[in-house]
């Protein structure tokens, strides 16, 4: 499964990709902001994106993908330090399929990803 990990922190991308790899998801690619993510979307089956990023933030990326017929149905999981109710509601309203608040454990990350894959399959 080709999963795109979008985060401006290289450390966080490395941690997420390690957890994905340990869980058997080996086809991961990465981007450090929303704009770079759009250029890497070819063949991507799941997007994991941070919210607070320079150049193009995660919410702008979600809006772009949901308005693009080629990617409008690709599942998106927001992984962010922002867990305030208003932001969670806004993200879900814009088309995010699930929401993970940093810090997270590996099991939370993988459970939520599996849940999204099951629901959107």
């Amino acid at each position: 499964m080709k999963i795109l990990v979008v985060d401006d922190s290289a450390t966080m991308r490395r941690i997420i990709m390690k957890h994905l790899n340990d869980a058997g998801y080996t086809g991961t690619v990465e981007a450090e902001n929303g704009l770079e993510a759009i250029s890497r979307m070819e063949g991507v089956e799941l997007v994991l994106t941070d919210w607070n990023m320079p150049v193009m933030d995660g919410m702008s990326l979600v809006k772009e993908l949901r308005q693009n017929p080629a990617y409008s149905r690709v599942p998106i999981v927001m992984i962010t330090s922002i867990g305030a109710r208003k932001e969670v509601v806004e993200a879900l309203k814009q088309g995010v399929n699930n929401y993970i608040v940093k810090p997270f454990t590996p099991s939370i990350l993988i459970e939520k990803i599996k849940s999204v894959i099951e629901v959107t399959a």
Partner: protein
Amino acid sequence: MDIRFVNPFVIAVSNTLTTMLGKTPQRLAPVIKKDNFAQGDISGIIGFAGKVVHGSVALSFPEATALKIYEMMVGEVQPKINTDIQDTVGELVNIVAGGAKTDFDREGLDFHISIPTVVVGKNHTIVHKGSSPVVVIPFQLESLPFSMEICLKMEASLSQPSRQARVVAAG
């Protein structure tokens, strides 16, 4: 600055490191900062601004602490502070600010957080947003020290904490 509003940041530091490292840092007694010098060799700083609450928070680490935290988080050893360590410190302060924002949100206090900046070097300075006193909270992670600095201003007419905030402060 009302010290009770420091609690969400302290809780966020503890929650972040406990979840990501499996180790809970020990909080020591807070002090008011007298100058702009950082306590560590690398510091991550993030600003926040809302209608009621605004200011900045910083995490400052001696080199040995920053290297150990990176090793515990990523599973790789780095010999000295480099871009990977800077990135990690920036991400940690971002997660802490986000955690505190979530707590403040439960009290109806909303604010935006900025992109973090990271400063490196012996005796570097940390310039906080605003003129409020800077509170330094020292921590120990196992035997390794680090500190959090908070400079926070609440608008006076709206700074009375709710019942829930008082319970957290008392705990």
